[in-house]
């Protein structure tokens, strides 16, 4: 599956936690909820939030090569209404 099609689903009101591990230092940005998470090799990180907003929110890698041109989202988090 290509990254753009990767989707994680949760329901409004749930508490969501995304656990990350990576083989190079990265800054991950969950759009909409506006949460930034730093992850590095050997240092797993967590993006955690209460799913109060419904919608389809991209997670993008930030600070990657100028960031002026288009980046595909790493994955999407879909929060469905109850």
């Amino acid at each position, binding site marked *: 599956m*290509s990254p*753009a*099609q990767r*989707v*994680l689903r*949760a329901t*409004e009101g749930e*508490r*969501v*936690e*995304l*656990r*990350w*591990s*990576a*083989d*190079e230092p*990265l800054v991950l*940005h969950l*759009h*909409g*909820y*506006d*949460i*930034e*998470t730093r992850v590095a090799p050997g240092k797993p990180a*967590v*993006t*955690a*939030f*209460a799913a*109060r*907003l*419904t*919608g*389809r*929110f*991209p*997670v*993008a890698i*930030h600070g990657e090569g100028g*960031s*002026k*041109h*288009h*980046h*595909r*989202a*790493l*994955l*999407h988090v*879909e*929060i*469905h*209404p109850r």
Partner: protein
Amino acid sequence: MSRFIRASLATFTGLPAEAVAHAFGERYDLPLPLHLWLAAAGLAVALSFLVFIIALRRGERSTRLFLLRIHPRVVGALRVVSLLIFFLVIAAGLFGTQDPFRNFAPAFVWIAWWIGFTYLTALVGDLWSVLNPWKVLYPKGLFKLPPAVGAWPAVALLLAFAWIEIVWEGNAVPANIAWLAIGYSLLTWAGMFVFGGEAWLRSGELFTVYFGFIARLAPIEWRTNGELHLRAPAAGLLDPRPLSSSEAFFVIVMLTIVTFDGLRETPLWAVSDAHWTAAATAGLLVMPCVFALIIFGICALMGNASAGELLRLFVPTLLPIALAYHVAHYLSYLLVAGQVVIPLASDPLGRGWNLFGSAHYQIAVGIVGARFAWYTSIVVIVAGHVLAMYVAHRLALARFSERRTARRSQYPLAALMVAYTMLSLWILAQPIVETVK
């Protein structure tokens, strides 16, 4: 180098969050669920049959009801406000911060004006004809525009504007907006000076032409003497005079850019990043021609008149479907992202001012959710479809002397409208995979 990233859903632990900016123009709409998709599609088709039965009665006149007369001083005041905002956008772009999220110009131009003002026009009529900042300077022309020029300059400018809106990466940079506004002002004033104010506004001022067509959908008619008249929604589309070829193509470009704007966010438009700009530019130029050919083919099936004449007569009846899709696509975005104009009005240059006391307003992202977006989408799309069908029938009755010919002319057009509405619903049911910055 390969990269391994794992994510799993688990329980909440709580983590301090660092606020960062979103990509400008980003939307978070969930795809339309299958059952709503089916309900809307079924309803649109069922109501199409109802229109066939009801709309074919002859003799109904479209009525107008006098509403009010706008005092010239009110018009003058509105023009002053319009000019002030116009100069504020340019000043903010040139002298303000270049962060698109902290500058008034991008939020005002792309959200409040280009989306919000379109909806305002569809609701209250042709406000642009009153507020147009380029109309204030009103020079007499030196030369006459040859009739063959038509609205082709406006078509070219609309395509250029759509390219800036949809394709160009630099469209949210405040200074770019200011320079574009200055360049476009010089072009417009030069056109008005050389060819005459009214002549250029009709053939080369793309926003006059654009908002003029949107205003045909409005339930309010603005007359040049300042009188406002109430009318049935979309009654402005019942004009029995066919458009010129250039105006008809302008409408086709309007239909296309709305659809293309949605399509390029779906998985169907999975173009690699390296080719994105070239592919989007090509798509933007090719799609109007494809649409024009399809509509021309449909008009050739309508019978009893030349396809070209029928196209020029009936193409505006597709506008309610396009506007309905536009609303379905952008309404929640306008309501959420549009709020950014509130703090930016107090600090348009991003210098820490607080002119109206609203500089610290926090955007309420949760004011509309997925359910609101879904239900407004399908209601608006079904309503737009029915309106389009109805207007086309009324127009056919006026155009063809026989009721049977009028009805037969509507079968191919109705099929096109159903297909166009289905395409709109299909796009809404697709997940947004637009690239993010």
